[in-house]
């Protein structure tokens, strides 16, 4: 990055190909900051709702992982497929999921994407094939299952001549599952455009990574499948974006699946009930100093992309938006008990795999400044 705030065609050509973030326009950098802040603020509102007993069941924070979630998803095109986990609120915000959808889910509202049948970010969006919208498939609690399903989505889209890159996030714990292994291997053999974001956030519930795998770097999981892999400082948003962008484009170009190893830290317990006393305080202190949002803010200021006043304004915008959305969702009705057996089989379209998507306040400006035109913009 050189701190330039506008770009033209000539400047694209001199940019370092290893650093696609050099091509991000000012508005795009601010948009990334906004999504990261919004993810954090949505979760802060959820904490309030949780303490008010309005969240049904558990609340899972992504504190410390918002940056990598945003930076990886930001490398995608609007039409790609995402399969996030509970700690990828940032990815959902980046793909344009309206925050009210998250609040409805956590409060088990009858208006939620799952009509109160399933929890937290277990949401699904299936756009019509000709729309410029993402495919979104939330996880099920058997973590690891998303990987073969993601492979199938990218394979199926390819078979339908409507190709999409699929990006699936997975924690260090879930890389120990059979589903992960089978999905990775199958995707490699079939050269499926799948990008896996493997997050080493140091703990799977209470189990440290040393008891999860005997290798030192999580991205080495990919080695035996013949899958390209790289490890990145997960709390450096532009570094994450650089790797993600290269891998997404490589997958899109037909070079098969890719794996990004994310070195990061889960800053709270597994869920709100878990005080995480098994995590050494020194480790938390070390990672608190590396908070991705604060680091990114620092970068934006140092490179004269924005000043404190503008960034404070974005912070407030995100916080107010999250609060408004939470307030709207609170009063919505719970599902009707009489619907309990509806929608188990086809023929009763009770739930619809659709969520409301929104554009960020920066979308209009940033869309005109994309580093390279998307397919739909060309056509």
């Amino acid at each position, binding site marked *: 990055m050189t701190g330039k705030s506008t770009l033209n065609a000539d400047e694209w050509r001199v940019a370092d190909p290893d650093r696609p973030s050099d091509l991000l326009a000012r508005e795009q950098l601010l948009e990334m900051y906004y999504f990261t802040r919004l993810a954090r603020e949505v979760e802060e509102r959820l904490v309030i709702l949780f303490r008010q007993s309005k969240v049904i069941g558990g609340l899972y924070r992504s504190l410390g992982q918002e940056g990598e979630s945003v930076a990886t998803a930001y490398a995608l095109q609007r039409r790609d497929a995402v399969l996030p986990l509970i700690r990828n609120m940032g990815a959902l915000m980046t793909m344009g999921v309206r925050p009210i959808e998250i609040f409805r889910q956590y409060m088990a509202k009858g208006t939620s994407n799952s009509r109160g049948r399933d929890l937290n970010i277990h949401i699904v969006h299936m756009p019509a094939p000709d729309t410029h919208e993402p495919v979104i498939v939330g996880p099920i609690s058997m973590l690891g299952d998303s990987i073969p399903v993601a492979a*199938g989505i990218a394979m199926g889209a390819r078979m339908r001549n*409507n190709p999409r890159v699929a990006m699936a996030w997975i924690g260090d714990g879930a890389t120990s599952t059979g589903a992960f292994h089978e*999905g990775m291997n199958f995707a490699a053999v079939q050269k499926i455009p799948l990008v896996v974001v493997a997050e080493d956030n140091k703990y799977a519930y209470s189990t440290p990574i040393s008891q999860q795998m005997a290798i030192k770097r999580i991205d080495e999981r990919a080695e035996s499948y013949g899958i390209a892999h790289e490890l990145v400082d997960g709390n450096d948003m532009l570094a994450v974006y650089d790797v993600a962008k290269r891998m997404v484009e490589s997958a899109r170009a037909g070079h098969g699946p890719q794996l990004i190893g994310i070195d990061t830290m889960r800053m709270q317990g597994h869920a709100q009930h878990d005080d995480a006393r098994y995590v050494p305080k020194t480790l938390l202190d070390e990672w608190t100093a590396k908070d991705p949002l604060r680091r990114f803010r620092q970068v934006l200021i140092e490179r004269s992309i924005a000043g404190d006043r503008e960034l404070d304004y974005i912070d407030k915008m995100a916080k107010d938006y999250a609060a408004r959305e939470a307030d709207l969702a609170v009063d919505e009705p719970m599902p009707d008990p009489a619907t309990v057996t509806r929608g188990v089989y086809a023929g009763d379209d009770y739930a619809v*795999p659709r969520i409301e998507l929104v554009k960020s306040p920066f979308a209009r400006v940033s869309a005109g400044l994309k580093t390279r035109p998307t397919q739909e913009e060309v056509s």
Partner: protein
Amino acid sequence: MSGGSKDPPYTSAFIMAVITYLEAIRQALFDEMSADERVFVMGEDVGAYGGAFKVTEGLQDKFGEARVIDTPISEIAIVGSAIGASYMGMRPVCEIQFIDFIACCFDMLTNFAATSRYRNGAGVPIVVRGPCGGGVGGGPFHSLNPESFFLNTPGLKMVEPSTAYDAKGLLKAAIRDDDPVLYFEHKFLYRRIKDEVPDEDYIVPLGKAAVRCEGSDLTIITFGAMVHTALDAAKQLEADGVHAEVLDLRSLAPLDREAILASVAKTSRVLLLYEARRTGGIGGELAAIIAEEAFEYLDAPIMRIASEDAPVPYAPPLEAAFLPTVDKVVEGARKLVEY
């Protein structure tokens, strides 16, 4: 086109050919892949080799490697990627080389596929098919009848044909269905059973049983290879003047409750015949339905004849002792009518 709860309407309008149960399955795959480009097949050794039982023989020659996909030995990836592909509008047909291996993708089927529509409205139109059943010396891991593993999972459908006609018609219906369907094909029947199958397009609708043999003294409710055991038993009983009705369930989920209750009301005696192990099997569910909804029609206790509560044994004398036989059915039926 199909006869619903009756036998198929064989008419002169159809060009009929006598083909095997296995050939009928293959024809259904050819037909559906020809008619609908969204249909594709994936599984272990299904491509050039044509499958362990040659069900998919010739398929890859006709439709190419992109639509007849040889997979690694990865049942989770087979079913998981089929779910994903179905989300994108495809109609995957997964072959599980021996249905025993379906246990390896139990999670994908019961937790992911079966719940998807209920959770978020995202249907999973996949078919997972494979050879089930014993009687061929397959031993503990090549002989299972897994229907009861899945009977407690709403969201899944299950079928098991007993004739070539049904094998083709049920598979076509399963592929066109918008929900995940487990299609169990009994390997004992693959080349032993032949019957007339139309060339024209037809389906056997899911959820419809068929009366294979009319009777008034007792009803034998069964499916799959046991239909033929029941029919042989009915023939022997007929010589004694006992008229057994044989009801072929064809669909195990959803069950054709109407056909079950109608037959029970007619005969008042029920013998539940299934090849899976007795305890926790589908017979328990059938017995409960009949007891709850047709108790007043019953003149005798509901009887189950099933395999022994043991892993499936390998040696022929052990397997013969393990499986239900015509003799066991005849003996059971006599007890029922004498009750």
